[in-house]
């Protein structure tokens, strides 16, 4: 990827269909410390709804979209626990 959307871990989920981007986030959030930020780069339209909803269900912070990566949205999540 040509840019880093201001995150400690960037998950490239381009081309993945729902629920795979959320599964990838669930699998890998543990790789960063509490308060660190994970960016999920996903072009699946469901990610825009499902990543904030996942954050609510799992009690992490959804920070919104950062700078897009090659034109694809990067959804930013702060690990809270």
């Amino acid at each position, binding site marked *: 990827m040509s840019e880093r959307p201001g995150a400690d871990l960037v998950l490239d989920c381009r081309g993945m*269909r*729902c*629920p795979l981007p*959320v*599964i990838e986030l*669930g*699998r890998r959030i543990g790789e960063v410390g509490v308060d660190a930020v994970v960016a999920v780069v996903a072009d*699946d*339209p*469901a990610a*825009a*709804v*499902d990543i*904030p*909803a*996942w954050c609510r*269900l799992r009690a992490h912070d959804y920070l919104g979209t950062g700078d897009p990566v090659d034109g694809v949205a990067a959804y930013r999540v702060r690990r809270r626990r």
Partner: protein
Amino acid sequence: MHGVPDSIAGYLDAASTEPLHPAAREVLAEALDSGWADPARLYGSARRARLLLDNAREVVAAAVGARPDEVSFTGSGTQAVHLGVLGAALARERAGRRIVCSAVEHSSVLHAVAAAPGATMDRVPVDRAGSVDAAEFGGALRADTALACLQGANHEVGTVQPVAEAATECELRGVPLLVDAAQVVGRLAVPGGWSVLAASAHKWGGPPGVGVLAVRRGARWRSPSPEDERGSGRVPGFENVPGALAAAAALRARLEDAEQLNRTHEALVGRIRARLPELVPDVEVVGHPTVRLPHVVTFSCLYVDGEALLTELDKEGYAVSSGSSCTASTLTPSHVLEAMGVLTHGNIRVSLPRGATEAGVERFLEVLPDVVARLRATAGVDRL
């Protein structure tokens, strides 16, 4: 040919369509023989067809709180919505071209608004439960708003909308209100205050191919169709007299049972809502917990593919529907779930038909947790 649809025991998709009511079947067969003539003609058989059509209109009008001359039959609920929206927009062109809709209207409403010449859509958001705030709805109405549209209840999550309050807001501002009552008619009291109302007979156990368009006397509405003498000038084409009569028979039968059915459905849905979170880990039950249709419950299962869930439940004999994107031809998630901000994947809507039983629901509650667990294990997400 069989008299009963396949695997009716596992049929949990009444919000898509209700199996034909036996009362409708009987009347339909009779009316095909007695109501075939052209109701616009003047001879005996035609007068008989006209009489049957008028009877059907009276029954439906009484059920939706309309006068018989305000009601026309259409070819479907979707056609009723299209004609309702386009006709109201056309008649109000001089007032303006903005159309206010809740963000969770049925796609037929949103598509009709998009097709209205020069119209701009103002979407009123909903809360996490899918409810529209009536004051916010009223606040969206402007001097150049031609029409406002609000559903009686949401088709995907069952949340009942504050139509009466929204109607008051519309009346205060002189904006006509179109109510899509497809999920409500035959189940709950139809709120008053509408200028245009649309409904669909197969949702209450009537035959397919019969919709209802009601336009309040005095409401501004002009037919968007080429001129035609039939359907009171609102719906072009030769009327489906047998269909309308069967629809009316089903509605009458349905209303007679509505109180009892609603109580039964309420109890069964209440049980599903209460037990799902105990039975299935990481499930989100969506829609308003109390202000809702009695027969609908919708939930999303974290990390589960909605299409796989539908397929597995079908193998177990259950017919349900889903708002997940993988089940839609467009590959976009349901705009309803999106507007509510709830999980869109692993989504299932269960809607109980007439004849749903406690034993059937209990068996569903036994099967579902296993199906979800199996799918999660296969995807390797069972410990996430």
